[in-house]
Structure formats: structure tokens, C-alpha cells
């Protein structure tokens, strides 16, 4: 049943990386339970603009849970209260009339704040640039069916490949580690025959890049897995650790 809610929002406002930020309180009324969380923010922002106030800056794009652009910490949880759901796919029916909702940006050493809820996540791209690919040029690839890959293996690779690179795992980790993100890519490629030839080099340089970029170490807290909107499992971290060890043996 469609209902409407009134909420008290406490949203992190910060003009830029070098100035201080603070939570600012906004009241919103008549929010339909069918609306998404970001649509609720749209409603607030339209009102702010009409009042001549600066709207809340936040990243978003697909609004389908696939591009990985959106994300904020809602009442202490990355992407909010619903399991395996990005912020854009969180609907207001999961809130109650009168709720107080605290909305903060991803916070982590490797992510600098740009404005309000927007942060710079380019450190994640740097990890991929360090080796998260198969080094093949365009052209000259053999027929796609030349190498059979068992269904089981390709499904497992796909489980890892579902990562959307949103950074929730980093934001949720007490140490600010990017282990889940990095291991998802390592694990996806290491399991496929196409990814094998450079598996050792890949894992070594991606792991090195993680620390260069200022990400912390894994403390086995499992917060990353709990926050991941795609349900990426920490078994990939274990696989990455194995691959990493293997990379020392010629």
C-alpha cells in the first residue's frame, strides 16, 4: 500500500575537501513509500533550489543498482538498511513516518571528499589500472568457442565479476581496506583460462597498488561482505590471498 512519510534528515554538508563540514537538518513531508531514496533526495533538492539554497550534492546515474555511482552511509550503514541493495534501489517503504535519517558520505583514507556526499574514488580505478585485465590487444583473438570453460567455473567467475565498484566495502571496513573490491577482480580473472597466463603478475601488482593508494589492511572484520550491494563473498579474499602467495613461487 502506498503511504506517505514525514522524515527528519540529517545530511552531511561540506563545501569542499579543505573546509569543515557538519550535519545539517532538513524536514521532508509527503514522501511516497513507493519513491526511492534518491527520489526522496530529489524532492528535497528541488525544494532547496526553489528557496535559493544549495542542494545536496550526491553522485548517482543509472538508478538501477548497476553503475556503482551512488552510495552514502545511511544511519551508520553503507547503502542503508537493506541487504544487497544499493542506495538508488532502496525504497522509502523501508522507513517509518517520523524516522530520523542520518546521511553521510563514504569516509576512508583513500577517498577524498569532493562536496557533501560526493567523494573521489579514483583510487579504485588505479587498482584496476595496475593489472585488472587480460593483456590482449584488439584483433587476433581465437574463436570464442576454441577453449571450453566449464559452466561451474564461468558461473563462479561471474559471481566475482558482479562487483559494481561502488566503494561500499571500503567505506564499511574499519581499516579502510579495498580487499573485497580487488579480490573480486583477481578472482574473476584467475578462474578463467584466459586470465591464467598473467595471474601472478596481476595479483602482485594489484595488491601493491592497494597499499600505494592508501587503502588499509584486511582485519577479517567481514564488514565489507555485509555492506556489499552485490553480495560479493569474502571467499574471494581468501582466493586472492592464495593467488598472492602463489605469485612468490616461480
Amino acid at each position, binding site marked *: 500500500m502506498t503511504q506517505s512519510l514525514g522524515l527528519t534528515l540529517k545530511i552531511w554538508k561540506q563545501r569542499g575537501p579543505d573546509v569543515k563540514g557538519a550535519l545539517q537538518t532538513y524536514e521532508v513531508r509527503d514522501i511516497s513509500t*513507493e519513491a*526511492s531514496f534518491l527520489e526522496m533526495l530529489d524532492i528535497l533538492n528541488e525544494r532547496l*533550489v*526553489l528557496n535559493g539554497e544549495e542542494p545536496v550534492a550526491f*553522485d548517482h546515474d543509472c538508478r538501477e543498482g548497476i553503475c556503482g555511482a551512488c552510495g552514502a552511509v545511511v544511519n551508520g550503514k553503507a547503502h542503508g538498511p537493506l541487504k544487497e541493495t544499493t542506495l538508488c534501489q532502496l525504497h522509502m517503504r523501508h522507513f517509518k513516518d517520523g524516522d530520523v535519517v542520518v546521511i553521510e558520505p563514504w569516509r576512508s583514507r583513500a577517498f577524498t571528499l*569532493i562536496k557533501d556526499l560526493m567523494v573521489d574514488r579514483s583510487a579504485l*580505478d588505479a587498482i584496476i589500472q595496475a593489472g585488472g585485465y*587480460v593483456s590482449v590487444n584488439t584483433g587476433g583473438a581465437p574463436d570464442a568457442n576454441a577453449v571450453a570453460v566449464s559452466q561451474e567455473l564461468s558461473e563462479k567467475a561471474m559471481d566475482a565479476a558482479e562487483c559494481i565498484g561502488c566503494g561500499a566495502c571500503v567505506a564499511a571496513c574499519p581499516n579502510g581496506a579495498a580487499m573485497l573490491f580487488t579480490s573480486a577482480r583477481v578472482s574473476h580473472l584467475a578462474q578463467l583460462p584466459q586470465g591464467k597466463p598473467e595471474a601472478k603478475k596481476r595479483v602482485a601488482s594489484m595488491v601493491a597498488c592497494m597499499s600505494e593508494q592508501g587503502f588499509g589492511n584486511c582485519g577479517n572484520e567481514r564488514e565489507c561482505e555485509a555492506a556489499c550491494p552485490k553480495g560479493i563473498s569474502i571467499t574471494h579474499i581468501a582466493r586472492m590471498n592464495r593467488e598472492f602467495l602463489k605469485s612468490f613461487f616461480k
Partner: protein
Amino acid sequence: MALDAKIPGGPLEEKWDRHCFDMKLVNPANKRKYTVIVLGTGLAGASASATLAELGYRVKTFCLQDSPRRAHSIAAQGGINAAKNYQNDGDSVHRLFYDTIKGGDFRAREANVYRLAQLSCNIIDQCVAQGVPFAREYGGLLANRSFGGAQVSRTFYARGQTGQQLLLGAYGALSRQVAAGGVTLFTRREMAELVVEEGRAAGVIVRNLVTGELERYAADAVVMATGGYGNVFYLSTNAMSCNVSAAMGAYRKGALFANPCFTQIHPTCIPVHGEWQSKLTLMSESLRNDGRVWVPKKAGDTRKPSDIPEGERDYYLENKYPAFGNLVPRDVASRNAKEQCDAGKGVGATGYAVYLDFRDAIVRDGRDVIQRKYGNLFAMYQRITDDDPYTLPMRIYPASHYAMGGLWVDYNLMSTVPGLFVLGEANFSDHGANRLGASALMQGLADGYFIIPYTLGGYLADRPYKAHTESSGAFNDAEEAVRQRIEGLLNARGRRTCDDFHRELGRIVWEHCGMARSNVGLDKALSRVEALQEAFRQDLAMVGTAKGVNQTLEKAMRVSDFISFSKVMIADARARQESCGSHYNLAFQTEDHEARRDDADFAHVSAWKYTGEDEAPEREVERLTFEHVKLSQRSYK
């Protein structure tokens, strides 16, 4: 000026190979002296950037998002076509070519489409080599599914996230080139102006979306892969940032806009709920493989679907089109859904929805099989609607989805501005008046991996290096124009938000330039858009400054371009006095209410030329000749 598509001579099957041989090559040692700008990191832009850098060009790549991996291509669900004939069901390059031409209702170029079908096979090979985890059979070979508008099974897929996996493949290749120094990446940048010098594309002015600064980049060629304009309808399945601004920037500088009225309204989307709605979610067309579309036979039937007995359901697609059933092309499926709802048979709270029912498929194949095929789509549907599609039929309705129209390009994918190439959804090249499912991904990757690397070389081979510099007058003027435009918008002190204008624009074009069009409606739409444009100039509410992040300004720039663009789209629809594919003018229909083409007068591409902001655009025509397919009334019965 007659539009010359520069289609190479010779037999259809040999045109591309011959052309590749005939084009001049750039000496490998000289490639690094050329700078190429690529706008966009979707499938088309990422694949082009990576491949051009592999060849040795110096590539500068730009995108709006914070990471190239977030381009809208990431959202494609269903799959990518290729004429591999792995299923041994009679597919071939020729059949894929034929299906695409016919699916486009005979409004696409034969030579382009044939090349696309040829290259489709290389794409799959390339993607598998990159580690794209396509779905596989138990034996370990690649799996296929069938998609709307085809009777063979030629669609490759990776669960319901094919676009994501293909894009991550291309993004990997791009990232590798970033690490190797071949590509310099500029994220959170928006192209604000194309710089044209001595009649050639010379570079771009971009707005840095973090600092707000305007930046200049000169190049020897510009490759635009900025995606489609489906968001002109406000509500669409496109990502929020999808825009027509880059294309309009090129159009204002002399690139022609081809077939803007060909817009795809996708039949299977989650219906609209309320005024605050910001986008519509696609439910992949692959669902039509197993889902059955129906409405109650009786108008105004408000019973629960489970209470409506079999005999009182109208499986209207299966009944009307026995050969293709639920797999008719998108334009046909959408129009039929609209017809049912307009006749009062629509379901759900608004009456603007039809059922897509999996009951029979679940009984036939078991819940596990259905879950493996569509699990993530079902979960997405449930998350949004709070209904469980395993037990209740989905409710779906058509929504704006894809732009067949786009900047006019010749066979080399070059626009009418020399040195400006256009790839992917941003060009108009291959889909005619209607695109078949799973062929946009194919086209974007064919353009980026396999076509532009050759044709760009053909253009550059006779050019001097570094013909353009960022300090030239052309760059000064272009930057000044952007600055003035931004100032104009920032000075607005009105009382209506950008979204409010955009919503109204969407309503106008959805009603009059959407699934069904009429001359009277189109004329009305044009005058309403003109009034809206005036109101936008007078009454826009704006906050913030040109410095730093200003998402309100970003929106205002895009909405103002959508408004200008919609006038070209409406003019195009008005000028095309026939129906074909997605362009359905009520005055031109067959007895069965299918689109009635007029091949004598309209077997052409309409390409529109900018003549001034408030002037009507001028139309140029490229005649289409068909030597290999016989023009026929499209029939899916």
C-alpha cells in the same frame, strides 16, 4: 549539397575488406604524433580509446562520471548478437544482416548493416579473450538465447548484466592503456563546445565538473561516443546523465542530425508510479522468451490476475502474431500494449500496464531454471514494486529506451564536420527506424574495436600533425561562447526548477512524438515546446556559481539542449509523411494497424542542418538504395 555516404564499390560481401585495403595507412612510427580525443567511455568510447592507443595514437578520453566504468552501457541487461551460428539453427551473416534491415523497417544502409553483421563474430572472440564471463552450456561452450525480432538463437549474455560485463572488458582494455601511457583519462568532464578550425574538428572545450573550470584540448581528430538522447522524454530507461548536449554542440557547429524522430519505446518497463518518479526501469526483453503478455479480455476488469480464468485472458501478441508471438520487435510490442491500454484493458493502479506472466514457464521448466535465467531481474522487479513475480505476473508498460537517430555519419563513421567521428548510440548508422534487441552493444563495439581504428587512419594519413593549438582564435571564441552561456543560465532568478521544465518537455513529446504521432499533434507539440523554451529563458530557478560542483547548472545546460533538440525531433517526425518502425503516424497505417511505409518518397535518411537557435532547421536527404533485400511490408504474423 547531396549527402555522400562514401559507400565503397564492389559486392556487398567484399566492400569492407576492400575498403580497408584501399584506405591509406598511417605509418606506425607516426601514429604517436597524432592526438585523438575520445568523448565517452561507454562500449563505443572505451573500445575505441583502448584500440586506438594499442595502435600507438595518443588518446585523450573524457567522461562525465567519476570513473569510466560507470558509463550508461553498464546497464544493458539482455545480451549481444553475433552471427556465430553456434546453435546450428540456420543463422549466418546474411541472416543477421537481413533481420537488422527488416527490423529497422528498411530505413538503414545496406552496406553499414552488412559490415556490422560481419564484425559481430569478431566481437565475441575479442570479449571472450578479455575474460568476459558469458553464460555457458554444461559442455563448456557458449550459450545463446533468442531475442525479439529474430527466429534464431544468436544472443550471447552474461546473466542479466551483459552490458556490465562487456563494459568491464572494454574498461579493462582502457585501463591497461592508461597504465601504459597511451590514454590520458579525464573523468568528471563535460564537453561544452566542439572547436572547429578551418572547417575541421580541432578539439573541445570541456567543463571540469569538480572545479567548474573550462579546459581546452586540441587534437587531430575528435571521436564522439556520447550515447543517446532518450532522456528527451524525461522518463526513460537511460541513466540520469544521458544527454544530447554533446551531439547538439556538434550540430550547432555543422554536423547534421539524422533521423531524430526514430526513438525506441521499449515494451517491457516497470510502469510509472508518481509525479516524483525520476526514471523508469527496464525489464530485459529476454523475459519475453518465457513470459507471456496478456490483458483481461473485458475492459475495466479489476479482478486480481489469479482470479481471471484462462478463457477471459487475451494473449494478444500470441493471437495476433502467431509466428513470432511474444517475440515480435519492440515497436510492434509497444504499440500493441498502448492499444490495449487505450482500449481500457490496461491493468494496475493507473491502467497503464499489461501483464508479463511466468506462471506457465515456471510450471514447464521449474522455478530453478527460471531463477537461473532471470533471478536478478525478478529481484530487481520485486525491490521496486514490492510484488513477487514468481507468484504474480509482472506489470509492464513501454518507456523511452534508445535513440536510433543521431549525428549523421558516412560509411567511415565521420560526420559532416571533417575530423569529427561519431560512434555508438550517438550516431544514426545501423538501426533504421527500429533497433532489434541485443544489437546496440554489437554496434557500439563494432564501431569502437573494429571500424574506427581503420577509418580514422584513413582520415589522418593525409593530415599534418598538430594542426591545431589550444591558444588559437577558434579555441578562444569557443571558450568565450561557453562562458557566456553559463553566465546567462546562472543569472536566471525564476521560480521553476530544471526538473520541472524537463518533466513538462517529457510530457509534450511523450504525448505527441512518442508511440503514435499525428500532424495536428506534432504542430501542437512544436508550439508548446516553443512556449516552454521561452518560459525556460524567463523563469528558471538557479542557485550556485560557475565555480566548483554545481549539479543544478549541469542539469540546466542539459535540459536547455533537450528543449532545443526536441524541436528538431518534432520537425523530423512532421516531415516524414509515412509510418515506419518506431515512427508511427496515425494517418499512415495498414488495415491491420501496422506501419505503412512510403518507399517511393521516404526511403531516405533525413539529416537536419542547424540554421540558428530559433530558426527552423533545414532538411537534407540521403537516398537509401536496396540492392540485396527486397522491400516488403514487415510482417511478423
